């Protein structure tokens, strides 16, 4: 996929230099970096708003959009954006509790995936298009793709920076935020659309089926490590960046799909943090209150 096999030497600096001689690798790193930052930030709100499954589902909704776009000869990113945004706006309008309805979301998810399959089947081109939507094709990002990713990311980042405290309040204490006068519906819909944009650009890196690894896992790691929202956002970004950079680097020399390495690194980080905390909690119970065992009567007892 990345052209001629390149030999890995243990001189990392020269390895990086060799890798960045290729335009497609530079594009992959640029787009990957921007996407990891956006995914890390949006992911934090996905975790505290309990939208992990909705995020996964929006990826699948995006699949049918992308496949439809391919069928009509349009850039798949536009199909992705259209479908994920519509789906997200719908979820947002139905309210936050609706976004947590697993059965309804799952039913729509399956239908959308099926619809995508039909579009791919009707399309007479190569199956690689479907493959890259499902699993990501970061090495295929063009110069204009990088620019588009950057523009979309700036919109998301500016919006989140503006809304940060309101969104945090609305996510953590819905009823109080409503009583304090926050426009809950508008906030919810806005966040869902930002999420849709983030998913649409992240699909380029990781694909709809693996979206969890970039949009949820880094933030899931972060909330285990810190209780401070801003720190958690930074850690979430760092985990997403780490997974993306190392994933790209390893795939360049190992010649296996970048998505696989990114997912694996994110997963390994999550497992390492949970295991580390479990061990720490056993050794020194007071150091890791985040993994404090919960009993059924935990709420009542002090």
């Amino acid at each position: 996929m990345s052209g001629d096999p390149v030999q890995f030497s243990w001189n990392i600096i020269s390895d990086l230099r060799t890798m960045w001689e290729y335009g497609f690798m530079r594009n992959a790193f640029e787009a990957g970096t921007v996407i990891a930052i956006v995914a890390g930030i949006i992911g934090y709100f996905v975790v505290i708003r309990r939208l992990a499954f909705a995020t996964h589902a929006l990826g699948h909704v995006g699949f049918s959009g992308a496949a439809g776009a391919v069928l009509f000869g349009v850039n798949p990113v536009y199909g992705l954006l259209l479908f994920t945004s519509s789906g997200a706006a719908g979820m947002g309008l139905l309210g936050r509790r609706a976004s947590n309805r697993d059965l309804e979301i799952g039913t729509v998810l399956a239908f959308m995936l099926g619809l995508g399959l039909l579009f791919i089947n009707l399309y007479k081109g190569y199956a690689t298009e479907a493959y890259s939507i499902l699993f990501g094709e970061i090495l295929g990002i063009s110069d204009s793709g990088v620019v588009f990713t950057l523009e979309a990311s700036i919109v998301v980042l500016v919006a989140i920076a503006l809304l940060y405290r309101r969104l945090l309040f609305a996510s953590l204490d819905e009823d109080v935020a409503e009583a304090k006068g926050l426009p809950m519906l508008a906030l919810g819909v806005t966040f869902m659309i930002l999420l849709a944009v983030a998913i649409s650009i992240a699909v380029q890196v990781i694909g709809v089926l693996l979206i969890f690894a970039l949009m949820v896992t880094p933030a899931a790691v972060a909330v285990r490590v810190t209780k401070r929202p801003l720190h958690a956002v930074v850690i979430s970004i760092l985990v997403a960046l780490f997974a993306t950079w190392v994933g790209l680097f390893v795939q360049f020399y190992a010649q296996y799909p970048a998505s696989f390495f990114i997912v694996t690194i994110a997963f390994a980080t999550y497992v390492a943090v949970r295991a580390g905390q479990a061990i720490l909690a056993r050794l020194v119970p007071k150091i890791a209150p985040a993994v404090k065992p919960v009993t059924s009567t935990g709420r009542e007892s002090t």
Partner: protein
Amino acid sequence: MGYRDKAVWRNASFDIRRGEFVAVIGPNGAGKTTLFRMLLGLQRPTAGSLTVFGATPRRGNPRIGYVPQRHTIDHDTHVAADTLVRLGVSGTKWGLGVSLRREKEAANEALEAVGAAELGPKSLGALSGGELQRVFLAEALVGNPEMLLLDEPLSNLDLRRSRDLVEVIHGLVQSRHVTTLLVAHDINPLIQCLDKVIYIANGNVATGAPETVLTSASLTELYGVPVEVLHDSRNNIVIVGGEDLHGGESG
């Protein structure tokens, strides 16, 4: 009196003066939470009028602090308690607001006021029910409101922790002169500190001092069926014969 909060509830009206500690009691579905939602400006009365601080309630009134019955926080909420308290003052603002000293101090002050200073850095998900209620109280208190609306803060607490929390709330009412309405299911942990009871049942409202409202005659009239109010040796009350029991547990 500048603070006259008047509400009409199917032919019944009541007013609350500044600095009063008021319990709102009644069976499930009687409309206790609805009353709060109307005071907060989230819902409008279908008929009659309701004024808070001399005006029609509007959403986002900074003079009111609110602790709802329902919260989105559970064991999976890995966020520090003082972050939530701070959002009580900064949660409606735009931008990131990174480390504003004034807000941090306000949050710590509010936590101290409810005797929960040590809970600030702890994760919300790791707190017990009683600890959480103190944090919610601090969140409601952080903007220095003149009125507190507390919806069933005692519902998941055992009697001892109920009494502890009531003590904290009563202390706030006295020291800050903050008008407090508290929805409760069990009147007993509160009865010693109350100025007034609003008893909603059967579409009617009885209101007044606890010793005038919580009598067999008054509640019989309210429910429209014979009701008896019994007292135990420690002055706890049990209400027998209504649709529901609101005394019950004794200390």
